[in-house]
């Protein structure tokens, strides 16, 4: 058995209107090169000017993870000989990043593990190269060149692919909550490189690591790490040594392959960018970033447990995105105090039927057509016993599909639950008369038949009879 050590470098595309150093648009999906301006193209004589919003977002992230915000940090040039950055270098940060340290808490099994961060720094993205569009040519779309990225580097303290995925999910939730990233992994808004190495025991020095580039989904991260850990273990167990290299994950063949050897280590020749003054985060900017911070997901989940009596699992699901948490909270605050379990019933409906309906139609909670107040009205009718479970589902479907209000729907659909003792007793007697054999068997000790009787009665009432009441009445009538 080997001790696995994983560290992640995550590139988060910051949600700004314009680029990190130029006033051109960052909008996704525009025709090629329509959003590549003079600075992005590296025209001689142009100068980069940093985007205040991008800096503010980096600071907000640093504050959210409890990192140290560098009052003064510095942009550096990283020499880079690919045509997707026409300047011949990438503007990044090297020895003086904007955020140092901080930590992210992840759920591991039943417990919580704190993953320390090394740093987070600002840098510009490169353009996109297409190698198979024209024979013998590489085609360049430089729309992405210059888009602001925050590179977040974790310490090598993740011990398994599962922990790496939990960390990436937590980070994804956090940057979306902060409103600094749209979190769209298909469009590359969050990209991940993984460093992985093995050692014989946790006390041994770190083994030689490989780096797996450009993992753009949680699933690929997990698959690539699982493959790479097994590969390294096989190399080591055969008496070999792991080569320090960069590898690419091929999702079709589910394997990693060497991309370039680190022996010919890239010499990036970092040096401070003479076009840019040191970046200063003054009190004003820091206060602006502070003002951006919402209640963070973990804190909000804990509050949901305390204030609404939710299970930690439900609180975790409901705080997994800010719009979902806002939606739930709108429903919960409309029903809380009315019925002892109303906030929990609300959680049940939001997580069950509502998310189900949204999924079915492929829309996100932000675009939910059902207003929280209308769902709250349904929850209240469940809580006060007007609606049984199956009838509530029926009313929910009608509520979802139309504009009618809950009480009107209950009347129109005849969905009101029968709680009236006399009416229920009549039903109970009718069912018992119709099933004399089962009645005998029940009296002879087949307790399970109670469920059968209740089921028959509910069915006979068109789903409207209150099953709890029925159970009690059957027992009463049968004398046991």
């Amino acid at each position, binding site marked *: 058995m080997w001790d696995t050590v994983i560290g992640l470098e995550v590139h988060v595309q910051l949600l700004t209107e314009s680029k990190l150093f130029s006033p051109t648009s960052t909008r996704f999906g525009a025709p090629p090169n329509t959003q590549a301006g003079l600075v992005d193209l590296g025209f001689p004589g142009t100068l980069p000017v940093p985007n205040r919003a991008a800096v503010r977002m980096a600071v907000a992230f640093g504050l959210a993870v409890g990192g140290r915000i560098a009052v003064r940090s510095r942009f550096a040039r990283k020499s880079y000989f690919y045509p997707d950055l026409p300047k011949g270098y990438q503007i990044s940060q090297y020895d003086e990043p904007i955020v140092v340290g901080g930590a992210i808490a992840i759920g591991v099994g039943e417990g919580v593990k704190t993953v320390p961060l090394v740093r987070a720094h600002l840098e510009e993205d490169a353009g996109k190269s297409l190698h198979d569009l024209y024979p013998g040519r*590489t085609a360049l779309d430089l729309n992405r060149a210059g888009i602001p990225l925050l590179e977040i580097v974790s310490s090598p303290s993740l011990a398994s692919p599962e922990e790496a995925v939990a960390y990436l999910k937590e980070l994804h939730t956090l940057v979306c909550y902060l409103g600094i990233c749209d979190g769209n992994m298909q469009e590359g808004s969050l990209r991940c490189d993984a460093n992985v190495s093995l050692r014989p025991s946790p006390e041994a020095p770190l083994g030689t690591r490989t780096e797996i580039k450009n993992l753009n989904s949680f699933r690929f991260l997990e698959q690539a790490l699982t493959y790479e850990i097994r590969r390294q273990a096989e190399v080591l167990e055969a008496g070999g040594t792991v080569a320090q290299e960069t590898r690419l994950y091929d999702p079709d063949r589910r394997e990693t392959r060497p991309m370039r050897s680190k022996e010919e280590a890239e010499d990036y020749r970092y040096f401070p960018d003479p076009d840019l003054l040191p970046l*200063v985060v003054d009190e004003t900017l820091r206060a602006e970033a502070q003002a951006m911070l919402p209640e963070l997901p973990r804190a909000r989940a804990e509050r949901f447990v305390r204030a609404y009596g939710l299970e930690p699992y439900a609180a975790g699901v409901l705080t997994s995105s800010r719009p979902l948490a806002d939606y739930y909270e709108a429903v919960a605050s409309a029903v809380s105090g009315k019925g002892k379990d109303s906030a929990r019933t609300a959680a049940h409906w939001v997580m069950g039927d509502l998310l189900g309906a949204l999924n079915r139609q492929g829309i996100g909670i932000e675009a939910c057509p059902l207003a929280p107040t209308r769902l709250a009205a349904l929850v209240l009718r469940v809580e006060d016993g007007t609606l049984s479970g199956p009838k509530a589902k029926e009313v929910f479907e009608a509520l979802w599909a139309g504009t009618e209000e809950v009480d009107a729907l209950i009347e129109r659909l005849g969905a009101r639950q029968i709680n009236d003792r006399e009416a229920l007793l009549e039903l109970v007697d009718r069912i018992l008369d119709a099933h004399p054999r089962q009645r005998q068997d029940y009296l002879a000790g087949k307790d399970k038949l109670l469920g059968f009787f209740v089921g028959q009665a509910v069915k006979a009432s068109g789903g409207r009879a209150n099953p709890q009441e029925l159970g009690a009445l059957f027992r009463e009538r049968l004398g046991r």
Partner: protein
Amino acid sequence: MSLSDEDVRRMARLARLALDDGEVTRFGDELGRILAFVDALRVAVLEEAPAALSGPWARTPFLRDDRVEEAGHPELYQAQAPESRDGYYLVPRVIEP
């Protein structure tokens, strides 16, 4: 301060320059003379001086507001590129697809 041929070849590789042996000798010699010239700076007393590249940072540097103020003008810019097609800039293929 002198440079070895190996230093010169390494720098040439980083700069993507192909040098023949004669050029390696020639540039080694020229670069060596430049370094000797710059070496004179070593006598300067720097303890008290601010770091040269930090610039006049006593004033807060200018940050731009996050607004789109420049449209890409692909047709204009691409007119200056050696090769372009369908909106893309074309360069010699850098890797095999």
